[in-house]
């Protein structure tokens, strides 16, 4: 991307995770810029929970997130492909059997 004369250091990018209610996981909702973690959480409250969408926020600086590479998706996930026996529906049970 092109640069310009008045360019300065941007506030770092943070990934925001919100727990919508007690008992559920935190879920990724988006990202935002903030100077530090406290500001990231405050901004996340304003940007991502204006309608009671959450009761708990995690903020993780984006540079600390490590992701799997989509180009390696094949070799990474294919081994699970032919192991249908890991699912309960793989097994035929006699009709007499209840509650299993």
């Amino acid at each position, binding site marked *: 991307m092109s640069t*310009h004369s008045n360019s300065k250091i941007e506030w770092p*990018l943070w990934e925001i995770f919100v727990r919508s209610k007690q008992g559920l996981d935190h879920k990724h909702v988006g*990202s935002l*810029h903030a*100077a530090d973690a406290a500001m990231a959480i405050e901004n996340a409250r*304003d940007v991502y929970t204006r309608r009671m969408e959450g009761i708990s926020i995690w903020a993780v600086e984006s540079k600390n997130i490590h992701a799997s*590479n989509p180009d390696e998706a094949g070799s990474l996930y294919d081994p699970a492909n032919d192991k249908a026996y890991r699912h309960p529906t793989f097994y035929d049970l006699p009709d007499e059997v209840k509650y299993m």
Partner: protein
Amino acid sequence: MQNQQDVFFQDKVDKEIRIEPKDWMPEKYRQTLIRQISQHAHSEIIGMLPEGNWITRAPSLRRKAILLAKVQDEAGHGLYLYSAAETLGISRDEMYHQLHTGKAKYSSIFNYPTLSWADMGVIGWLVDGAAIMNQVPLCRSSYGPYARAMVRVCKEESFHQRQGFDILYTLGKGSEAQRKMAQDAINRWWWPSIMMFGPKDDESPNSIQSMKWKIKRFSNDELRQKFIDVCAEQVKVLGFTLPDKDLKWNEARKHYDFGTINWDEFWQVIQGNGPCNKERLDARKKAWADGEWVRDAATAYATKKTAKNKAA
């Protein structure tokens, strides 16, 4: 000749598999999205200005609280969209720079002035209504982060449209002066609103490729027609009229026919010659310049605190 990656990419799009940030994508797809998403974000941010004009003059505390919440939503929508654009490799500051220097555009509708309180009603009903018509199909856009941002935007946008309709409905039941004010606002905003769908299909050069890539799902003219059909009915409920003498139900087409759009005006406003282009951009640039010391101070504070924590 298309290369193999292009074919593979198009196949994914055709199968409705969403494209995610780290996936391979054609450079033109990336650039088209950056342009579209950043323009969309800029529109949300500039879009706060015409309404901000009336926050301090809202007729009641209730209306004021509602308008304030709506404008805050628009700031939020801008932020969701800027984040989505950043996943494509452009920085936030670069996008601001493009907006402030006029390289990037925003929706031309925001270059019209808000002259009366009734304009707040019309902006909600027509401008946000047109935006929703455009945006709902974008929730299924082929680019994942854009589609996800649009889901959030659309959920929130429907309150915007209803509060606008509510303002007009109330004015419609009001005094003669209030009714006149509302009709005048509808008259001024109607044509710019239907221009929001963009140029006619045969004059919209980027549309075909965007539809092939499923960034867009419906053409400009299709969406415009749908919007006109809806508004032509809703205006009756409000007890007002739309300023188009050619607006008439066409039984054969099952659509409303409508008059000729003044495209010259559309292009003039896009090129910077609308009534408020300069004012809007100046306000935005001033806000950015005035906020500089705050951004610098926060950065300095965070740097100092990090250094202190390391030392301790």
